[in-house]
């Protein structure tokens, strides 16, 4: 679209040319001297202030797509993945004759490729990824034989191979992977693609029923811990999306089967490895039982599963880190075969460590994942990058050490397993940070005699030492000889957030002796926007501030005052882990960048006093007409003095722009279909949703059922029962708790929408607060790591528990990692349901002035009724258009 492109280009020009010449900077300083604060005209920003560190890892699905095949199986057009691609041409091919011809493609690969595409769609919103995933799922469905068992291979004509042992109809590896892929599809696409998944669901049901039979009889799926773990991952994905007791029970039994396979302990070979049988070797290939058990711990709320997962990781896998390499096979007696090293062996260890980090909240596992994943980017015996970011190809492995035999073919399994592992690494700031470290010194020759410590170093000089402790393995960053750097962090000045900031920073400082953070609450002011602007003018900005509103962001970016975050490793990884593309869409500036990390949200909902509504016979209103009726029924004279003194709701009478966050704007967004005030430089609020919101308020004031008054400062009329309802965010829950009002029972419902508004068109006001890194920082990468820490799952749990505020995080309400934290406060789980159904302020430099125009319309038409609603809105829209056109 030409217009959009021009606008983006103009934006980029503005950003690029935004650093003023010296004279202009002195001008700013002069004004600061006369109006604001002492200026820093003589100070010059550090030249390296926004220097870019190592960019985030690029995940390319190009080679995987290149291996894709369109075939017809049992009459259905489906997608599959060719098994092999030999160097140097990398043409897709089937299995060679030496293996006995199996076919051109398999369910084994297609299922895992589907998981890759589903994750890619979840992370980037890529439509081709979704289409490819659906095509691969169709292949899986076509290979099911009507009883939950699967065939595995097809030939080029799409005919299934029924004779090869690796393809026989069974409940085996391929069926287990089918469950995994279909379970992930339910989790990722379930709500939005229910039609597309219709043909898959009966197959999934049959397959789960078939798997249940094996589990009930005490058999591992396919007789293998690997297959059982992969089937369990599928069940857990389903359980996340659509919890069901029967499913939970099956998953629990499966997890318990895996727990029982543990052999040895920290001191005795095979060091806690889970073996299919007591006399079987452990092999790295597909060793996903740690990942499955750790995930089960989170999804099923069974801490003991995490402990079981830790047992293998702490006793065995940590030996890999001390040895400096991941083996291929370990016998029950502990003898090791180091080669071949393949992605299918390294990847599951990486993903297992990351799942453990999630389940336990211990960042050391994420660090171990990063160090292990280094194999993919060159930290291996060959010194060659096994995964190529440009093509998305992954070499098939390293076949031997002396001389190093690198297999440069790039078949489906290597490519898929690399992508699976690196997708998860890309969503972990800690793992990403350590991805490019390499083991120092020669690798160990056996796992019996690994050193007690091993150092890993990166090309930039960063070093970390892993060393054995009583609990397994720990790590320590080796601080450089130079003094630690110091970052200044401004949280919001309210006591709750200052306490939260202090707790988090204490933890950070203890873990990062080389990067110390100093907390300074945001200086006082009417709004943080004005304070931050003053600080920018005076060049007195902190390194990081966590109270940046969308109202300020566009201006900060135009001024070049903040650092872009989606192209820095740590913050990019955290964004990937925390948000969906849809959640970020409205937060991108015209150049497509994310310049402030969306930290927390306070979706506005209608809070109501349960007893007052019950006493008046009012049900919580869902529509704006019902809300008006509630106004009428809840307004009364409680003491019989002839004056109304109890009200349904209080709409602020002040016209300060942000007061509209509690009346007009949430009522408007409730029925606006996601429209805000401005889009692409055009005013879009002169519409039926705005009319409905303003007219509701007008009728309330006009009928005398909304109080035309400001209540005394410091008094909350909802808390003392003067009003029965209030449009408010979850932060107020903590405030009510602090007030300790005996007997107050309250609940929340979505802000009522105009009559006839479709459920999909209802949005809540987000009241988003973001974290920005200011360009004045000399340490943008350290600051980015700190931001990633502030937005980690552990920090997010603390945010909920301390402040009753919600992280801007995908699937928050259904994410079991946060369930206990959400239960800490009443109504918070309901608020959490709306985190992804929100709209915030427009990222427009003039949004404050536009809100002021709306405030005037609100006052004139609703409060005092001196101008008709439509006329007032038209006037406000014209005024807003003038503001936009004037720049």
């Amino acid at each position, binding site marked *: 679209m030409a217009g959009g492109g021009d606008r983006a280009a103009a934006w980029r020009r503005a950003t690029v040319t*935004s650093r003023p010449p010296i004279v*202009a900077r002195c001008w700013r300083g002069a004004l600061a001297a006369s109006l604001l604060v002492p200026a820093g005209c003589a100070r010059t920003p550090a030249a390296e202030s926004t220097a870019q560190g190592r960019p985030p890892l690029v995940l390319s699905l190009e080679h995987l797509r290149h291996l894709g095949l369109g075939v017809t199986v049992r009459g259905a057009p489906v997608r599959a993945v060719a098994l092999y691609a030999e160097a140097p041409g990398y043409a897709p091919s089937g299995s060679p004759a030496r293996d006995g011809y199996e076919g051109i493609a398999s369910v084994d690969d297609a299922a895992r490729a589907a998981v890759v595409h589903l994750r890619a769609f979840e992370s980037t919103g890529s439509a081709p990824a979704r289409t490819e995933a659906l095509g691969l799922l169709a292949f899986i469905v076509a290979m099911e034989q009507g009883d939950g068992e699967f065939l595995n291979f097809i030939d080029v004509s799409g005919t299934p191979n029924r004779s090869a042992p690796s393809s026989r109809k069974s409940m085996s590896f391929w069926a287990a992977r089918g469950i995994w892929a279909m379970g992930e599809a339910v989790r990722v696409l379930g709500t939005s693609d229910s039609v597309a998944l219709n043909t898959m669901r009966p197959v999934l049901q049959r397959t789960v029923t078939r798997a249940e039979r094996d589990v009930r009889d005490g058999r591992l799926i396919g007789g293998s811990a690997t297959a059982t773990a992969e089937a369990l991952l599928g069940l857990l994905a389903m359980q996340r999306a659509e919890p069901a007791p029967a499913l939970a029970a099956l998953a629990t039994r499966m997890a318990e089967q895996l727990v029982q396979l543990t052999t040895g302990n920290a001191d005795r070979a095979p060091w806690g490895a889970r073996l299919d049988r007591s006399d079987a070797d452990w092999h790295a290939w597909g060793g996903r039982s740690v990942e499955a058990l750790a995930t089960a711990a989170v999804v099923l709320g069974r801490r003991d599963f995490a402990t079981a997962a830790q047992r293998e990781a702490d006793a065995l896998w940590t030996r890999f880190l001390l040895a400096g390499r991941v083996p291929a096979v370990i016998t029950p007696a502990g003898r090791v075969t180091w080669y071949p090293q393949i992605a299918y062996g390294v990847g599951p260890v990486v993903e297992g460590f990351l799942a453990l980090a999630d389940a336990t909240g211990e960042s050391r596992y994420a660090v171990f994942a990063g160090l292990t994943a280094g194999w993919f980017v060159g930290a291996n015996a060959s010194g060659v990058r096994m995964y190529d970011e440009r093509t998305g190809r992954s070499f098939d492995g390293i076949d031997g050490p002396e001389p190093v035999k690198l297999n440069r073919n790039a078949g489906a399994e290597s490519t898929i397993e690399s992508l699976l592992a690196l997708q998860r690494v890309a969503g972990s700031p800690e793992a990403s940070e350590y991805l490019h470290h390499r083991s120092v010194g020669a690798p160990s020759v056996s796992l019996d005699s690994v050193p007690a410590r091993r150092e890993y170093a990166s090309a930039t000089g960063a070093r970390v030492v892993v060393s054995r402790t009583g609990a397994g393995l720990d790590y320590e960053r080796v601080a450089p000889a130079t003094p630690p750097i110091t970052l200044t962090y401004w949280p919001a000045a309210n006591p709750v957030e200052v306490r939260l900031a202090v707790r988090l920073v204490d933890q950070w400082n203890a873990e990062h002796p080389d990067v110390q953070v100093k907390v300074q609450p945001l200086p006082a002011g009417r709004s943080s926007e004005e304070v931050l602007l003053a600080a920018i003018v005076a060049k007195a900005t902190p390194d990081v501030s966590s109270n940046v509103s969308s109202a300020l962001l566009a201006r900060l970016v135009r001024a070049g005052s903040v650092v872009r975050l989606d192209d820095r490793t740590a913050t990019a990884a955290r964004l990937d882990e925390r948000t969906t593309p849809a959640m970020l869409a409205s937060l991108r500036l015209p150049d497509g960048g994310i310049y402030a990390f969306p930290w927390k949200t306070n979706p506005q909902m209608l809070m109501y006093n349960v007893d007052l509504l019950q006493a008046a016979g009012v049900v919580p209103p869902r529509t704006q007409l019902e809300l008006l009726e509630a106004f009428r029924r809840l307004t009364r004279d409680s003491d019989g003095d002839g004056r109304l003194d109890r009200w349904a709701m209080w709409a602020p009478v002040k016209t300060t722009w942000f007061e509209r966050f509690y009346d007009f704007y949430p009522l408007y967004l409730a029925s606006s279909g996601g429209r805000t005030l401005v889009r692409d430089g055009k005013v879009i609020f002169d519409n039926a949703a705005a009319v409905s919101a303003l007219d509701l308020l007008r009728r309330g004031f006009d009928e005398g059922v909304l109080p035309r008054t400001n*209540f005394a*400062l410091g008094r909350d009329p909802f808390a003392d029962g003067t009003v029965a309802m209030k449009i408010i965010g979850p932060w107020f829950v903590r405030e009510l708790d602090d007030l300790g009002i005996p007997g107050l029972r309250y609940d929340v419902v979505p802000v009522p929408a105009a009559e006839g508004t479709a459920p999909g068109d209802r949005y809540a006001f987000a009241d988003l607060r973001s974290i920005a890194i200011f360009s004045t920082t000399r340490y943008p990468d350290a600051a980015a790591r700190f931001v990633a820490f502030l937005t980690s799952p552990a920090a997010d749990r603390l945010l909920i528990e301390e402040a009753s505020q919600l992280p801007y995080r995908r699937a928050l309400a259904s994410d079991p990692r946060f369930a206990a934290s959400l239960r800490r406060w009443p109504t918070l789980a309901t608020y959490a349901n709306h985190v992804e159904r929100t709209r915030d302020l427009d990222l427009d430099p003039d949004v404050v002035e536009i809100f002021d125009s709306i405030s005037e319309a609100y006052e004139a038409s609703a409060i005092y009724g001196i101008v008709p609603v439509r006329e007032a809105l038209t006037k406000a829209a014209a005024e807003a258009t003038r503001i936009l056109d004037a720049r």
Partner: protein
Amino acid sequence: MRAEERSGWQLSAPFVLFLLAFAAYPICFAIALVFMHWDLVTVPSFAGLDNLVHLATDTRFWRAVANTFVFLFIHVPLQIATALALALALDRPLVLRAFWRAAFFLPVVISGAVVAILWSNLYATDVGLINGLLARVGIAPVPWLTDPRTAMPAIALMVTWKNVGFYVIIYLAGLQNVPRSCREAIEIEGATSWQRFRYLTLPSLLPQTILVLTLSTINGFQLFIEPYVMTGGGPLRRTYSVVLYLYTNAFSYQKMGYAATIGVALALIIGAVVALQRRMLGRAEAA
């Protein structure tokens, strides 16, 4: 240069430098900004006469000017009357006179924002002290700050209360200068209290009255913190003062050029009004 001249320059240099840095330069800078677009954080751009044209046609600005005059018409006479009355009361022999003088001066030294918050609560419709007292005599609560008719008078009353102590001091100083001989003579002549006030005290206090008038007018034009804290400029923009509008443009909208234009216009308006006052009262003084 003679030693005496050199000493003179040396002694005055600190003040001259201060004046240049913190008065002359900002004034010149503000005038330059009138011809600029500037959002504080990006490079200023030349605006030509845009800001002046906008000012001339900006109904919000002229509404703010009108509001400020409304405030002045209420506040200035009230300020003079209450300051004079209190000064006369405190000039008499009175138990705890020093205490009362200090008590009336106290609001002057309290932060304007604190006073505004205090009075917001006094004016609160629901549980405010003023409405509480009115209720005792059967008068319905008055929405002091949310009714367009009462909001500005309520603010004017509060500002008068806050500043009255300062002007009382000025009048008390003036009262010390009324010649004792004249007081005695007019008393011997048998003048009533009103006649003594009308024909002796009031004319004697004319210089002080001119000063109070001038200062309260200038201060009144700078009305800001009270509407900023108490009403946000509402209801229906009836308490939106010129300085509040200037502040909003500068720090909420980041339109520094336009804010400077408003500031320069305000300075010109204040100058014109004070000149007019002095001209009119100067004639009275001469008479």
